[in-house]
Structure formats: structure tokens, C-alpha cells
């Protein structure tokens, strides 16, 4: 296990340097950017001085801008993720167990519909319907209402209800379908028969043996798809005007502050790599077969 962690950590470090190089190449070959530094200098600035650029508009280092926006993005992503798990796991598992029934069909068609909706469109519809300022049924705080957790926990929670719903539904739609597939496969496995032959209760067979394997299979993918999940968060922030990292990037582009966008992209990508490493290790803990390979 520790050899596996070391291996994955080494790979993550290579990835960090690599994305820096790719970022450097992509951003300096593009017009509108002044590529005056060399890559070694760029690398040194980033890894030794944590210098991800300077925002001329905000008169701040990009790093501190991003760090300042981090709590909002984290609040959105973690809350939506929890909601997605709470929806996707039971739905995916039940749809698989009741394969071919109307529950399965309705759930999976709804999921297909939602995952085919751009999350920003879903967000705008939620705002149009429920936002307290402009909505037809004004019950939840609308756009631009985000308040930090430490400033006012109550307002923090209510301001995030609609964004959580939009992003959480989108993620739940994707992952419930994946889970259903994995669950169907898991329930066909020999170990399910063994569990039944041991006289375990049906709940224990389904959740303790089938669902555990199905979830483990999907977690492996979540680690690889973190970039996609963060993309969804960027769009949600923009639709709801939540001043997180995504909105920072959007706002910077709108004001031609390219240094800020590029620093933000690089930092976000590095965050994806680091969180990916954590997910990998968690997955290895769930499924010890990976670290043996």
C-alpha cells in the first residue's frame, strides 16, 4: 500500500510539472499574451515562489485571489457532491435491482434528460422559478446572494440551496446511470451467490456485497473525471454569480485580465491533480486489488 501511495504521489508530481509546461506552451503561443519569460523561469516562479501571476485589475497576486475564492467553490462542490451521492447511490442501486420495472425506466429516463441539460441552463431555470428576487415562486435566495460560511451559516446554507440542486442533480444524473450498470454487473457475480448461500439477509447481500463493489467501481472513475466535475462547478458559479474560482476566471476574461485566468486554470488543474491523488489512495483502500497490481 505505501509503495502504491509513493508511486501515485510520484506520478502526481510529474503531472504537476507537466501541466505547468502545457499551460506555459498553450498560453504563450496564443496571441494577446506577452510570453517574455522562459519556461525554466516560469517553473521556478511557480514552484519556488508560488508566483502564479499578478492581476493588474485587482492589484493582487493571482494565488491570493484564488485562495480567497476557494471557500465559495469548495462549498458549492462539496455540497453538490454530497447531494449527488445521496441521490445517485440509492437510485442507481434500486434501478438495477428493479431492472425493467417502471421505477427503473422513469429514473433512468429522467437521469438521461437531466444529464443532457447544460447545468447553467438548469440553474437559470431554477432561478427563474424559485429565486426570491426574480422568481415566480420566490422561496430561495437567488443569484449573487452567496455569503461565506463563517460570516453567516444560515444565509450560507440557504444561498447555496439552488446551486446545490442544479449541480447536484447534474452529477447525480451521470453517476446514477453509471452505478446502475455497475450494480447490474455486481449482482451477477459469483460472490453474490456465496453471500446468499451464507444465509445473509437480503439487505446485507445487496448493500454489503453488491452496492459496495458497484460504488468502488465508480469511485475509480470519479478520480479521473474531477476536471469534468470542476467544469460543471465553473458553469454553476457563473449562472448563480457565486464569487468562486470559476466566476473569477469568467470575470477576468470578460475584463481581458488574462494573467488571472491563466493562473486560475493552472491552480485549478493542480488542485484536480492533488485531489485525484487523494481519491486514488481512497480507492486503493476500498479495493486493495489496485495497489497489488
Amino acid at each position, binding site marked *: 500500500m505505501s509503495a502504491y501511495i509513493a508511486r501515485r504521489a510520484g506520478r502526481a508530481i510529474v503531472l504537476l510539472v507537466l501541466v505547468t509546461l502545457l499551460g506555459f506552451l498553450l498560453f504563450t503561443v496564443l496571441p494577446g499574451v506577452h510570453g517574455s519569460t522562459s519556461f525554466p523561469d516560469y517553473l521556478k516562479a511557480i514552484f519556488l515562489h508560488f508566483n502564479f501571476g499578478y492581476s493588474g485589475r485587482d492589484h493582487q497576486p493571482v494565488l491570493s485571489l484564488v485562495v480567497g475564492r476557494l471557500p465559495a467553490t469548495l462549498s458549492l462542490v462539496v455540497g453538490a457532491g454530497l447531494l449527488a451521492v445521496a441521490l445517485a447511490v440509492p437510485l442507481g442501486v434500486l434501478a438495477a435491482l428493479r431492472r425493467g420495472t417502471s421505477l427503473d425506466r422513469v429514473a433512468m429516463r429522467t437521469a438521461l434528460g437531466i444529464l443532457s441539460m447544460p447545468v447553467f441552463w438548469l440553474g437559470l431555470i431554477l432561478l427563474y422559478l424559485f429565486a426570491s428576487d426574480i422568481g415566480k415562486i420566490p422561496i430561495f435566495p437567488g443569484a449573487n446572494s452567496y455569503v461565506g460560511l463563517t460570516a453567516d451559516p444560515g444565509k450560507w446554507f440557504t444561498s447555496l440551496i439552488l446551486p446545490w440542486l442544479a449541480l447536484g442533480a447534474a452529477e447525480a444524473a451521470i453517476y446514477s446511470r453509471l452505478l446502475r450498470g455497475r450494480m447490474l454487473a455486481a449482482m451477477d457475480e*459469483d460472490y453474490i*451467490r456465496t453471500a446468499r448461500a*451464507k*444465509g445473509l439477509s437480503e439487505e446485507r447481500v445487496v448493500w454489503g456485497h453488491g452496492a459496495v463493489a458497484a460504488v468502488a467501481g465508480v469511485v475509480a472513475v470519479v478520480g479521473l473525471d474531477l476536471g469534468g466535475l470542476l467544469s460543471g462547478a465553473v458553469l454553476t458559479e457563473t449562472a448563480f454569480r457565486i464569487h468562486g474560482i470559476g466566476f473569477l476566471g469568467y470575470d477576468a476574461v470578460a475584463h481581458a485580465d488574462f494573467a488571472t485566468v491563466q493562473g486560475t486554470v493552472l491552480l485549478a488543474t493542480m488542485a484536480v491533480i492533488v485531489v485525484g491523488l487523494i481519491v486514488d489512495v481512497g480507492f486503493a483502500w476500498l479495493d486493495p486489488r489496485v495497489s497489488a497490481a
Partner: protein
Amino acid sequence: MSEPLLSVEGLRVAFETDHGVVHAVDGISYAVAPGRTLGIVGESGAGKTVSARTLLGLTRGPRTQIGGRIMFGGGDLASLGEEGLRHLAGDVVALTTHDPLSALHPLYPVGAQVIEAIRAHRAVSKAAARDRAIGLLELVGIPDPHRRVDAYPHELPPGLRQRAMIAVALANGPKLLIADDPTRGLDVTVQAQILALLADLGERLGMAIVYLTRDLGTVAEIADEVAVMYAGRIVELAPAGQLFLAPQHPYTWGLLRSLPRLPEFGVEQPVPISGPPPSLIQRPQGCHFHPRCPYAQDSHRRIDPQLRPAEGEEGHSVACLLPASVRRQIWQGLEAGHDLPSLQQLAGVLVREGRS
């Protein structure tokens, strides 16, 4: 023979599929006494595994029809509800299978899987169950059980993995163990060890074993009685010694002759049984074995033979339309190494003579 522990009476299992009804098990009967081992032999698709899983209710489903009785401990398992079966399964009746890498859960240590089986039926503490699990791992011959109790299935070599699988089955000291080809896919030396272990456990724990296999060779080493299955039916049932010395069904001969190197049976080169196994949806008319039987006569395409006691020998039954005397002469001819065409001719002549 003492009172049977398990008595299967006219068991039938049929599955509805999109292609038609599969008659997987078609009216089989057998009995096993405590401490005895019944071997069930047949090709894959003969119905052994389905019949064994049906004992534990594992084949039940909306598209399955189950008939007959499974008498065990004074009750009929076939008519027992889900809940009742759950109390028996893994407690007094246990299952162990081949391919433990897929039959054991990949995400739990083997010890946890034994502990889970214990705690599903006994209200014992985790610590006590763990102690018992370690004891069981030791019982099945896993070295260093204190360490191995926390090993995952993929971390064990195949032989130890199969032993762990057996330990899971033994968790609650079952009276009946259903062993579904536990030596399949193992090296020959490991096979021998697993067979010796099962034989020893059966004896020491007074456990009855129903041992299913495709390999007549392994059955010789463990079974007291052997049932040969073909196309969902038992075609020959005999005490083990009897079956190997005086087999009476052409399919059994085929199985014996397909074993590698058994000079005492007059077979130098293994001779495979010709032809494909029959479809269980569209079964052959008459004797199900006739399309592959070298000695089949015209009438065998129409008449369906029943399992009947064989002449002279107690406990030996066979389902074959050839007269007993003819079968005896053919087997003697096979043992003497006569070639097949001459034996086929002999069968034809003898049958005609017998009829006239």
C-alpha cells in the same frame, strides 16, 4: 445404511428463457446419510450445479419452475419460505464452489467473510467470531492463520484461497456440505490436497458431502456413492467401488475411457466421448444419450429409459435400454481392449438374439 440426512425426490428445475424452456434438472432422486459423501459426475450442462444450488434455494426466481421434494431434517426445503431457507443456508447446509477468486468478495479480507457467516447465524461478539474464524482457517490447513485472517482473496495462492472458501462454508459446522467442483482449475498436487482435506473434514466433523465434479478421477478418491448425470437426469447411481469396477451405462464408460491413463481399465489413450452435449431445450427423443451412444439401437430413439435397479448388485441403478447381459459383455470387451466397431457389432447381434 443409516437414516438419510438429505433425500432428494424427483427434483425438477426448469428455466424459462427467451429461446425456450431449459430443462436443467429433470426428475432426479438420491439420498445422503450423515458422514457419507455422494459424488455427482457429469459434463458441464448436465444439471449438477443447478440441482445443488436448488437445495439452497439459489435458483429460485420468477422464471424458474421447481418440482419434487428436498427432504432434509424432517422438512421439505423445496417448499420452505425464503426466511426459513436463510436460517438453514450457511448454518446447517453450506456451499463451497470452484473459482474462489470470484466466489469470495474481492473487497473483504477472507477472515471478515468467515466472521460474517458466523454472525449471520450466531449471536457472538466480533472478537469471539474472529477467534473462531482463525480456528477455522487453521482447521482447513491455512498456515499462519493469525496473519492470513486479514488477507484479501487476491493475496492468497489458489490452493489457500480454496481452503479459505471451504472455511467460509464450515463457519457454523454444517451437517451437509455442498462442494461444487472445488478442485476445478487447481494444479494436480493442490487438487489432491483439497480432496484429502474434504475427506478428512467429512470424517472428523461427521458431515455429509454432496460433491459435484466433471472429473470422474477426483470422485474416486472421495465419494462413497456416485451418481452420473446426463442431460438433467441421473443415468447411473452406484457405490463408488461398484461404479468403477462394473459400470453399466455407456455414458459412464465414455467418462471412464476419457480419463487419462488408467491401464487397469484397459485404456491406454484417453478416448473422448464423441458429439456435442444435448440441448436442454430441444432434448433428443427416446434415450437422451442415443445420439452419442455407440451402441444405440433403432428402438432407443423412441423409448425413454427410466433409472432402474441393476441386476444383482444392491444400490446400483442404471437407466439404459441395452439388456444387462449385453452391457456386461460390452464392458468386458472394452476392458479387454477390443476395438469399437467389433463391440458395436456385438451389441447389435446380442440385442437381436435377445429379442428373438
